[in-house]
């Protein structure tokens, strides 16, 4: 059985941001205040560990909005489990970035 993934605070914050609906790099930068040199490599690591998954948006959507295609990130089931554990480790995480469900209530 694989050991539970332990995330650093930065990684946990980025994962929390993705889960909260900030689904592309720049929005995560804006939300967390982290520089691009931290956010993008961290997302590569999270993706490499199957905690998030990336997907290019459909061409038609980008064409309709007259902008370049964008890559979106989505949290995986493993990512949610890990995030739950990270929330216990970093109790202020949810206060910093409220999750999508919490913000809807």
């Amino acid at each position: 059985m694989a050991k539970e993934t332990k995330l650093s605070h930065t990684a946990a914050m980025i994962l929390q941001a993705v889960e909260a609906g900030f689904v592309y790099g720049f929005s995560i930068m804006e939300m967390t205040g982290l520089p691009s040199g931290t956010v993008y490599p961290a997302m590569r690591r999270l993706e490499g560990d199957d905690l998030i998954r990336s997907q290019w948006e459909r061409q038609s959507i980008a064409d309709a909005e007259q902008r370049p295609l964008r890559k979106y990130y989505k949290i995986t089931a493993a990512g949610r489990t890990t995030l739950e554990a990270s929330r216990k480790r970093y109790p202020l995480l949810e206060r910093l970035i409220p999750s999508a469900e919490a913000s809807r209530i």
Partner: protein
Amino acid sequence: MRARLQRGLGLLHLCLLRCASLLVPGELRAEWWQEWRAELWHVRFALVPADEFSWSAEQEVTAFCLGAFQDALYLRRPLPQPRTSLAAAQGSASHCMLVLGAVLAASYGFSLLLPGVRAEHFLSQHRPEPGLVMIQNASRLVPGPTISSAQFRAWSGRRQKYFDGLAFYRLAPATVTPSSGMQTGWEVAAASSNLFALLGAPIRYEGFGEAIPGDLPRLILSDAVWRKDFGANPRVIGSIVTVGARKARVAGVAPLGAWRLPGRVDAWLLESDSELASEGMGYVVAHLTALGQAEMWTTRVPITAYKGNDTEDDLLGVALDQQAPLPSTVFLFALLLALLALPAITSVTLDETSVSSHRTSWPRRVYRWGFLSAKIALLLPIVYLSSIDIAYWNPGLAPSTMVCIQVAAGFAGCLFGLRWALKDQQQRCPVCLRKVEHPAQVGQASRTFLDWNGTELMCMDGHTLLHVPGLPTSWFGAQRWLYLDTSWRFLFAGPAAGINNEIV
């Protein structure tokens, strides 16, 4: 002006991203560039006001672009390697080299420990002087003592054209009483005083005890007797020993391996030629003059000795430096025989047949050939030292027997060692040189002529599969390599590729 400045800075940001993209591995570069370019568009769209120029906004965009270098460098980093454990290292090229190195060290260690092998090393360093011959009666086919001391004295008293030195020795058992008083029976060689000097054989502790007065004959002890009867005590040099009815002074010890002439000797009693006993047959060693050496163009030469009464003796001169070939020469002979026999027991071709049109890069090929060369370079000294260990471990064996044993051991070692080296090479992945493992039987033997059947082995690093036909056919005679692309790698990921590490 403002628009031009913004366009210039926009170009600068694109240049920064392009430069960063050069750090990204080739297979990821296109997608990376697309993502960062799109992100840059969105960053500019969000930060840079459309109607006015803002330095702070441009600085933020520049900072964003500079972050791309960190991202590119992250993608460039080597993948986490699993910790090299013994199990993981097994089958790798370095493991093979390590094992061969250890075996070589063990063989060398054995050769240092075995007294017979040490003696052989000593002998190799102290070869007989060139031009030494053993003179024997030509009518005797079996080597043995054939020259009488009277005959020898007659020769040595005469002026010789072909010889500038002659020495005689005769073996006889004798009762020896050392100064301690313990009587023992030795095989003593009564020899000319110049015997060791003529042979060029060294004598240990020679010169010790010279202060003892008297004109007693000198006694040289063999290494075995010195150790057995005198406890390897150097103080024995100079002591008086009674050999038969005569007293002699111990003058030195002949090192192990120093004596390679016929006969097992425990001690040499060195006397002047006039003192040599007249009765019995012995051996004569002679050193050839330059003229004599020029006449001796084979290892054996017939010699005619004229007696005083106009009769002749038919003698034979046998070159001593040819009698026992050097171990290295014997080994080279065995290696030559093994190389000739090798194609009979294994395929010596290392041609690489690939299922696809894949060709290994030349650095990989050089690496592969270098590995094979290194393997053989380690293997040959192992076989050489092992053959010496086997042949010379018992110093009591006759030199010819030792040579025969060394030829046999060297031949077998070279033959099967080279066979192993080639077989091992044929079963190593051409990419990483790791030995392919986990043989799996594929197909049915009964369908050999309809479909492929044989054994499939895989490289545990996920580079290749090796197909070895069960029954070679005209269309599948030799083994073939199937190169796997990178999409197979996830199957071979090691434990370090797991997610149990703390990240970021």
